[in-house]
């Protein structure tokens, strides 16, 4: 189901994102390895620390589903090739919904 995601270089700043299994809500990993549904709280990882964080996420696949690397800037803003997709994923559809026009 997941779309093709670009491979990121080790030095590229990134976070881990996934879905909360019970609710389906999008989550991001905080710097301490816990999960948040608020993208402003995401942790930024690079190199081996990032690989460790992803490996750790993969051991938590009960609580969360399908973790993967998402590119961010050094200060944690969504960045790179998938910016539009990940921004919509973080902020919701770009159109209002559930309303009578």
């Amino acid at each position, binding site marked *: *189901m*997941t779309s093709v995601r670009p491979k990121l270089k080790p030095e590229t700043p990134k976070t881990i994102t996934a879905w909360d299994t019970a*609710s*389906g809500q999008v989550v991001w990993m905080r710097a301490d390895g816990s999960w948040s549904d608020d993208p402003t709280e995401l942790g930024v990882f690079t190199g081996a620390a990032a690989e460790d964080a992803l490996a750790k996420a993969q051991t938590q696949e009960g609580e969360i*589903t399908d973790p993967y690397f998402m590119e961010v800037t050094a200060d944690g803003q969504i960045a790179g090739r998938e910016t539009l997709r990940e921004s*919509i*994923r973080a902020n919701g559809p770009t*159109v209002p919904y*559930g309303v*009578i026009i």
Partner: protein
Amino acid sequence: MYRYDQFDAQIVKERVDQFRGQVARRLSGDILEDEFKPLRLQNGVYLQLHAYMLRVAIPYGQLDSRKMRKLALIARDYDRGYGHMTTRQNIQYNWVALKDIPDVLEHLAEVEMHAIQTSGNCIRNTTSDHFAGATKDEIMDPRPWCEIIRQWSTFHPEFAFLPRKFKIAVTAAEHDRAAIRVHDIGLHMRERDGEVGFEVHVGGGQGRTPHIAAKVADFVPEAELLDYLEAIMRVYNRFGRRDNKYKARIKILVSETGETEFTRLVEEEYAAQRETEKIALPQAEIDRIHAYFAPPAFADKSATSEAFERAKAADPKFANWSEVNLHPHKVPGYTSVTISLKPIAGLAGDATDAQMMVMAHLAETYGFDDIRVTHAQNVVLPHIALDDLYTVYRELDAAGLATANESHITDMIVCPGLDYCNLANARSIPVGQEIQKVFADPAYERDIGKLHINISGCINACGHHHVGHIGILGVDRKGEEFYQISLGGRADEKAAIGDIMGKALASDEVPGAVKTIVDTYRDLRTNPDEKFIDTLERVGHDPFKEAVYNAAD
């Protein structure tokens, strides 16, 4: 409408219980996503961009008020107050929590609904003409046959793991509103010497390699239909490619094998089915299913209604809506009403819980409790008396459901695109909204006449862009959204795949390009009655290409 028997009710209930157990194991971490995914997909549960999505089957698009109210309740209590009607006459919920889905399925089971076979490589919901049983131009009501196919294909053990998904559509009207020629199997009901049978088309499809189906049989008699379908399914199951997902649909088998050879294989399999294997449906069973679809008790009415004529004279908006959104009914004094879910700059195909309640109420009070979801993502009340029409219209209007655009340029088929879909390259909904704004003036839209725009956010083509008169496909150019426009597709009995016009355009160029295409048509048409697609066929695509790309240079 068909009613579950004890057996139907029991298998649906058992499936809910089984899935409840599977979800519990997923939530406790006993099984992980890789193991769970095939299980959830068998129950219509996808994981999308933001959340889980639940696709609920609406057999041949038919609902009644009880079902519609249940869909509204689910939208309100388990989703964010709306649902999305799909081109396969189903409904999708975009925000349901996995932990709640077993409860949602239990609600659905209470009204004889489920999400079984709405995904995965099985035979999906059989779709049909949304005016079935009401329209003047059908030789008979195709729904009993859709129901027979539904019963045959549900949990059919031989066809549970096909090479790829499989979609069947049936129509009995000369004008094909069910897009049967772009389905894996399309059945066109025909009459011959007083007997009813099926013209069989196989191997249509969209996605990355669109194909128009090949006609493999002119006339399969009713009693032999299931045997014939079984022969096709067996040929596909045996020879369909399982090595490559992109070559696994039956359309590839038909085109790689060749129509003649494929037909021969089907005939051979059909002949080889031993007598003991034949399904040969007993006439009593055919009659039993048909009885569920007996026409409602229409009143004896005259073909015209004074109340209707008076209301039209008094309310020009109503008069305009009546000219656009009504379809001729076989019984005098009645009409079929299209409720457009395409308000200008709205959410194509979405209905809120409150709107669903209004539609349920109107169907129950004025429409013999019959509701259809159309493949163009609208809703139809098939049997409304002309005498009641103005009342129905005003209630629709108060609920934001009286947009007058059926089959016109702002009545677009639009897939969820990047606003919801995990596979998308680009957004579809906002592009559709921007195009709608260009054509928001009702007089301009009426002048343009019938014209289908179809938008997909990626090559999977859920928005049927290949068969749109104007098709729009979202593509990703280094993270930017671009759109490829094609011309000349059509989904009806003259089905054709559109031709790409030229290089893809940036999203803000698309509405202007569509306007250029439309205004070029208005200049070139011989008279206002010549439809866009007919002008296009007559003059070719070049004048349109020149207009769009020269203007852009």
